[in-house]
């Protein structure tokens, strides 16, 4: 939205040309300038510049929705609002399960079962909706190389023996879990940025990242000077992209 070119914001052609001479081509550049600078750059009077500002703002401002509309939308589609974890007390505490459309973070000391939980959620997401799943593919970004496909099959076969009664079904399930092994921060970020198209093409219904902390701690030593800022930069950028994906596609992350 921010990188929207001014041309598409319905400014006149000559105005756009004039602004591009000062290297102002996107809405972001335009809105970052103060009123006086805008007057200088566009050569227009104060009131004209205010009208231009409104036009450009309208082009990139978010749409309004009332809380009521959001609630109606959610209640229209109750099954996809949560992914149940099948642990009843956990589901009760979480009000239904892992919520779709937002980020859920699982933290614990090593060995407590985070990766196992992630593998189980992957199995659950591939189940059909009638069994409490999301009937979709799973994207699993693994930074610790801790994902074991055999364990995936073991969990599926033992947990839902009636559903996964044939090898055929098990293989089908494994085909819908897409595993990406990333070992550096850069590649994780690149992978997250590229996810949008994969989600649409593969009909993904769950994104799992295991784990964020390991790759960040390996690369950024907080005792060194500039690293704290860079690390938080990386984390917040990744977080905002993930939030966008979660909300846009209404899937749990």
């Amino acid at each position, binding site marked *: *939205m*921010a990188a929207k070119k001014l041309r598409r914001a319905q400014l006149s052609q000559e105005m756009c040309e004039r602004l591009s001479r000062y290297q102002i081509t996107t*809405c*972001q550049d335009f*809105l*970052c300038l*103060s009123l006086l600078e805008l*007057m*200088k750059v566009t*050569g*227009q*009077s*104060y*009131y*004209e510049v205010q009208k231009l*500002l*409104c036009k*450009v*703002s*309208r*082009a*990139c*401002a*978010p*749409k*309004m*929705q*009332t*809380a*009521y*509309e*959001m*609630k109606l939308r*959610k209640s229209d589609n109750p099954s996809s609002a949560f992914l149940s974890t099948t642990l009843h007390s956990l589901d*009760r*505490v*979480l*009000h239904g399960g892992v*919520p779709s459309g*937002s980020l*859920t*973070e699982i*933290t*614990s000391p090593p060995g407590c079962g985070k990766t196992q939980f992630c593998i189980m959620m992957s199995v659950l997401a591939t189940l059909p909706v009638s069994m409490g799943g999301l009937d979709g593919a799973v994207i699993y970004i693994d930074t610790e190389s801790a994902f074991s496909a055999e364990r995936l099959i073991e969990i599926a076969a033992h947990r839902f023996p009636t559903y996964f009664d044939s090898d055929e079904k098990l293989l089908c399930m494994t085909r819908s879990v897409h595993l990406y092994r990333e070992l550096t921060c850069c590649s994780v970020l690149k992978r997250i940025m590229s996810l949008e198209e994969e989600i649409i093409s593969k009909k993904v219904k769950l994104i799992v990242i295991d784990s964020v902390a390991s790759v960040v701690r390996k690369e950024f030593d907080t005792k060194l000077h500039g690293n*704290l800022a860079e690390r*938080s*930069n990386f*984390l*917040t*950028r990744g977080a*905002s992209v993930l*939030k*966008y994906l*979660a*909300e846009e596609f209404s899937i749990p992350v």
Partner: protein
Amino acid sequence: MQREVGTLPLAPALRARLAAAGFQTAQELLDTGPCGLSKEIGISREEALEALQVVRQECHGDAARTAGGSGATRKCTALELLEEEQTQGFIITFCSALDNILGGGVQLTKITEICGAPGVGKTQLCMQLAVDVQIPECFGGVAGEAVFIDTEGSFMVDRVVDIAAACVQHCHLIAEAQQEEDHRKALETFSLENILSHIYYFRCRDYTELLAQVYLLPEFLSEHSKVRLVVIDGIAFPFRHDFEDLSLRTRLLNGLAQQLIIIANDHKSAVVLTNQMTTRIGQSQSTLVPALGESWGHAATVRLIFHWDNSQRLATLYKSPSQKESTIAYHITSHGFRDVQPPAVTHGAEGTELNPRKRPRTEEEKQ
């Protein structure tokens, strides 16, 4: 009338030409007339006419201001202000201790900033206020609507439903106890659907969308004149990453603060912002301070800092022009923001129940 040409809001090229032609005051321009002006500086007659209209408007505005007349003025005596402040409403928070230290609740026409570590209850308070601003006047509310600008995506509709239901129930109890006619009439319109449809929600993904939305807010507020609360949840989030140029950030934030002050004053609404905490590494220890730097601290009139003390949530009034600094404890229950129940009261069971949707407070990721 003696206003200098250089200060008029005309296009810069036009101003340059006027200066080159030797015009110095606005009066000279008006005396020359459009035809004379167009001949002297070489612009078309239509442009000259437009410029003169702008000049005339400006001068009239000036004259009105010096005469102390119309609504464009911003001066009045302290007595008028006192009367205004006394009749002004507050937005209650349902936590009487917090209302007390704030002097009655969140004040209209002022900017209130809420800072705190993640998970301490800032968004909860914002959602509570978005419901509380709609309480009808006969119950002590301001009967307004709310605008919620969300930059972090932490607005949960189901939670607002819970809070609103608890608020409606509370009002029903009051109405039953007091049995007055206007209470019952007000309750007919104070229903769950109404509350939810009067919360206007905007989701801004980055700082450009936030800036654009704040530019468009005055227009929106004039269309929806009943709005009495503007909440910006997470003003720090879009400004904290991807910003190499810190001076640009300060400039944008200051511009934002100015616009919010104007909005709060002109539309008589309260503006509530939430901010994150950052660590300031001192000589021997590190302390948590509100994010966005020292200059941002001047933007808000009232500053609340939420923090933990073992497992008790505390709120400290850090900056306020009329109340003294104090700290109180509060709880977040399934009904929303509430007081800590004193141990002697029997109804206190719900006070210890934490909001089930909050994630457990383990390692906080440093942002």
